[in-house]
């Protein structure tokens, strides 16, 4: 017995011993990085990425705390804490746990999903305008979801319909932009056209149905966190739990895909396959987020832009984009709730008011990195 267990552990021992006695070769990391290495495994951590992530996370936590505390029925931070852990007074607990927390979680998830999808599409197209909202994916998802809400002969739930719509819009845009070429204005213009068509379809659907159905579908047309359904949030949570790690797996290839095609392929990126993977992931994340919050796709433009302005240009800032997107979404919804209280401004309108000028600024400012 004793011998057996000893034997069983021997390999581990010898591996550990080897790791200790192996010549401690000090591999100098590139400037601005930390290198973590065990045996043959080596990881590089960019210091700046770490700081940016920590900073955005901290900002997100502070804003989230404010989100839980502020509104009709203002709470102190300690009261929020006690309500969160379930030891506060019943009203505060109800306010935080039943009303604000689910909405906060929805804001995190949709913000992160929109922003990561935006970052993926921008990298794929090598164009900062090529976010899912601008190339019509949001509108496609919305049109199909609205069709399902107003009961247009389908039994599919809004998330599934949104997915079908997003995929349809993306497929048509890619088809019109003649296949694999996702570069340049042809792609963007095709996307804008498709987005306009789907936007018109949404309006047409709303005009055709009784006013009550149209009212039920209204949140879909502006984008709000007020009308979220529990099922859609769960689906989005699942999508994020799978999709965000997948995005990180693709990050190395994405970094290489910022170079011209010949060079990216020279780095060993199987371009055609990667493009389909990146596009599919962006479409799914967008669709699931639209199913929760409607078309708040402006976050897909603002989130990655903030992330990129803070990060170095060595890689594609996916984590920073997710955090920045969540931050923008929480902040925008908080402003929407507080600004004209007790009237609530839909988050889609807040992001549009901020995002419109932002878009103009991107277009008009002296270009530092022409995309």
């Amino acid at each position, binding site marked *: 017995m004793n011998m057996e267990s000893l034997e069983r552990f021997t390999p581990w021992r010898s591996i550990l011993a080897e790791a200790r006695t192996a010549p401690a*070769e000090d*591999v*100098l*990391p*590139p*400037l601005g*990085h930390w*290198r973590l*290495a065990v045996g*043959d*495994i*080596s*990881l*590089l951590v960019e210091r700046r990425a770490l700081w940016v992530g920590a900073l955005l996370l901290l900002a997100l936590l502070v804003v989230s705390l404010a989100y839980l505390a502020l509104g009709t029925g203002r709470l102190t931070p300690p009261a929020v804490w006690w309500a969160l852990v379930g030891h506060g007074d019943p009203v505060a607990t109800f306010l935080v746990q039943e009303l604000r927390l689910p909405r906060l979680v929805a804001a995190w998830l949709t913000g992160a999903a929109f922003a990561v999808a935006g970052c993926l599409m921008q990298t794929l197209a090598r164009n900062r305008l090529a976010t899912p909202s601008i190339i019509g994916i949001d509108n496609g998802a919305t049109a199909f979801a609205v069709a399902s809400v107003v009961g247009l002969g389908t039994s599919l739930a809004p998330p599934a319909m949104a997915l079908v719509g997003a995929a349809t819009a993306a497929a048509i845009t890619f088809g019109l932009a003649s296949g694999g070429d996702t570069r340049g204005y042809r792609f963007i213009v095709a996307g804008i056209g498709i987005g306009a068509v789907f936007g018109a379809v949404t309006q047409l659907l709303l005009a055709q149905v009784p006013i009550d159905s149209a009212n039920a579908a209204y949140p879909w047309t502006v984008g709000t966190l007020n009308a979220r359904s529990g099922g859609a949030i769960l689906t989005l949570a699942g999508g994020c739990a799978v999709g965000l790690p997948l995005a990180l*797996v693709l990050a*190395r290839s994405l970094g*290489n895909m*910022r*170079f*011209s*095609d*010949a*060079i990216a*392929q*020279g*780095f*060993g*990126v*199987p*371009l055609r396959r990667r493009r389909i993977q990146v596009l599919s992931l962006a479409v799914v994340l967008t669709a699931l987020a639209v199913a929760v919050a409607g078309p708040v796709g402006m976050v897909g433009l603002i989130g990655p832009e903030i992330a990129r302005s803070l990060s*170095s*240009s*060595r890689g594609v800032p996916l984590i920073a984009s997710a955090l920045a997107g969540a931050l923008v979404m929480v902040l925008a919804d908080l402003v929407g709730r507080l600004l004209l209280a007790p009237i609530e401004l839909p988050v889609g309108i807040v992001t549009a008011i901020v995002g419109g000028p932002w878009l103009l600024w991107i277009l008009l400012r002296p270009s*530092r*990195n*022409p995309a």
Partner: protein
Amino acid sequence: MNAPAPPANLLQASELRLAHGGTTIIENLALTLPPGRVTAIVGPNGCGKSTLLAGLARLHAPGGGAVLLDGTDVQRLPTREMARRLALLPQEAGAPEGLTVGDLVRFGRQPHQGWLRQWSSDDRRAVDEALSAAGLEALAERPLESLSGGQRQRAWIAMTIAQQTPLLLLDEPTSALDLGHQLEVFELVCRLATRGRTIAVVLHDLASACRYADYLVAMRDGAIIAQGPPAEVVTETLVAELYGVACTLIHDPASGAPLLTDLRRLS
């Protein structure tokens, strides 16, 4: 047990046909890059030199025939394995903004890296060697945008050197450079060949091709019209055929390489 023979990294094209959107550019082309040598591909504008290079690097799928690497059709090699064996520097290489020289050269290690192998001692060594081979150690932390054309070109070449591929294809690496910087790049290329790499360079300039290449491939209208050591294949007739230019051929007293003088346009 017999160890498998080390790959010879012999790159060949056989009956190669390359087309661009319906237009055939190269037809029935056969070529073998002599291992460990510098091959220059020359010819007039639009003769298909760059297309051939892209075809050899697997960027264009052939319409017929095949490009073979040690006898295997390159279309059937995984992209990553290809990237470990062959590096291409295209004519218009675009990098993301804001990278430093070191960042760019480190990207050359991508085919050798993975999620659990992000920075090995091999990577460090390869990057350091590439920077020093290109004479860029002092500029490693400078942003690419702040460099002169020659320095930037050397940075790109350093990136392909760091890739440590036995095969290296360069498309007009000297076209934007002044004389001094051209020499710098050519000397670097020759040094790499003496260390055993097989190199193919597309060149505009026949004189440099004669001076630096071990092997010359002359192309016209998508076909090879002459190939061999420059001293053997470059003749007054060939120059006339390639460029429509009459000349007198002499031999460089210093190197023995063919030298063209008294150039006149034939009409």
